[in-house]
Every structure is written in C-alpha cells, then in structure tokens.
C-alpha cells in the first residue's frame, strides 16, 4: 500500500507497473486519474492551488484504503495526491487498485475516490478571470460516498 501527498508530478506507467510487476497473483489493476480542468462553474480556470492538513491527510487516506481492503479482494493500492499550484491538464490524484479480478479492482477504486472526495482534508482554490475563489463542496460528492454505506 502506498499513500503519498506530494507537489511533484508522478510517472503514471511506473506507478501502475509497481502494483503488478512483482506480484503474479494480480489479474487486474483499475485506476482513476483526476485532472485539472480549464473550466469550473462556467468560468475559466488558469490555475488550481491545493492545500491540505499534513498528518491528518495521510491518516484519513490510510483509513479509507483499509476500509476498502476489508470490503474487497485488494492485493495492493496506490494513492498519490498532489498539492500546491497546478495548471489545466495536470494530474491531481491517482488511485490505483490491484486485485485478482476486475470487479473488486473497479469497486475498490471507485470507493476510495468517493471517500477521498468527502473525508480527506484537501481544499482547492481556483484562479479565474474574476480573481481567486475557494471551490465549494458538492452535494453530489456526499451522495456518491453515501451509496457505499452498509
């Protein structure tokens, strides 16, 4: 399990290969890559700055991954979330799950993303032509996380 918060870019191919190259039991890797868009709420976005709560972030992500591991056959998992200033087309977050079979990999990957969106202490501030503004939390993210409740 790898959980990392960093300003630097990451190598997607290397991160995915690390999940299966040394483990012949892995039959599936499902991954999600979140990117900076150049538009939000109808306004252009020049840059996105991500802030987080060091310490709590890693703890929250570890708990989410543990919860996923208790629900699905998860052989390995990588979560990388970037912070600092990012530009459109740059990757923000990678969640990748290795499993024996695709169903578990897909489900666990989606679960981790849905919980990350509502439980991990990150905040986005976007620079628009009208100035800087904090991105508001979306109700649809709460709805997405709630559907996993047992």
């Amino acid at each position, binding site marked *: 399990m790898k959980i990392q918060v960093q300003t630097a870019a990451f190598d997607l191919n290397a991160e995915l290969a690390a999940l299966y190259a040394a483990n012949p039991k892995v039959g599936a890797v499902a991954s999600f890559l979140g990117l900076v868009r150049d538009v939000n709420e109808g306004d252009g976005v020049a840059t996105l700055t991500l*802030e987080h709560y060091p310490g709590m972030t890693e*703890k929250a992500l570890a708990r989410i991954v543990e919860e996923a591991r208790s629900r699905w056959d998860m052989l390995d998992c990588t979560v990388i979330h970037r912070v600092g200033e990012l530009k459109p087309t740059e990757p923000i977050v990678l969640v990748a799950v290795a499993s024996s079979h695709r169903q578990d990999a897909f489900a666990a990957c989606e679960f981790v*993303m849905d919980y990350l969106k509502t439980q991990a202490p990150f*905040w986005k501030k976007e620079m628009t032509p009208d100035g800087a503004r*904090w991105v508001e*939390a979306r109700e649809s993210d709460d709805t997405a996380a709630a559907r996993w409740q047992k």
Partner: protein
Amino acid sequence: MNVTLLYFARLREQFGTASEAATLPAEVKTLGDLVAWLRARGGHWATELAEGRAFRLAVNQDMADPATALKDGDEVAIFPPVTGG
C-alpha cells in the same frame, strides 16, 4: 485547559491565522463549547462559525462532532467541507 487550534483554507484566510495556542475557560468542555466560545469573538468568527454554516471539525487529526469532549493538549482543527480529488 490548553489546546492548539488549526484553521485551513477559507477559514484560515478569514481568521487571518493558520494556528493559535488557546487557553480555554473552565466552561468549555466539548468541541461544541469551543465553537461557541470562538463565535463569541464576533466579526469573521461569528459569521463563519454561525449556526447553519457548513464547516468541519477534527480532534487530533480525526473527524469529530460537537459532542466530542476536549482534553488538555488536544489539536483541534476547523475547516470548510473538503474539496480534494
């Protein structure tokens, strides 16, 4: 009781500080009491922490609710709903 208070994102900007060391009066026993005590400072504190405003609380880096009891040395964080991913 002494606690460390941390503020993030919009709240950090509105309050003009990222952290403070606070000595709480004896009547502040829970997280809810602490929020009410901060609200009584008025200004941005009253606005941002008003009843019905969306904000989140954490004690020692775990999400917590207003009923949570505080103890000496706790790290308390107050922040807007999260928007990562």
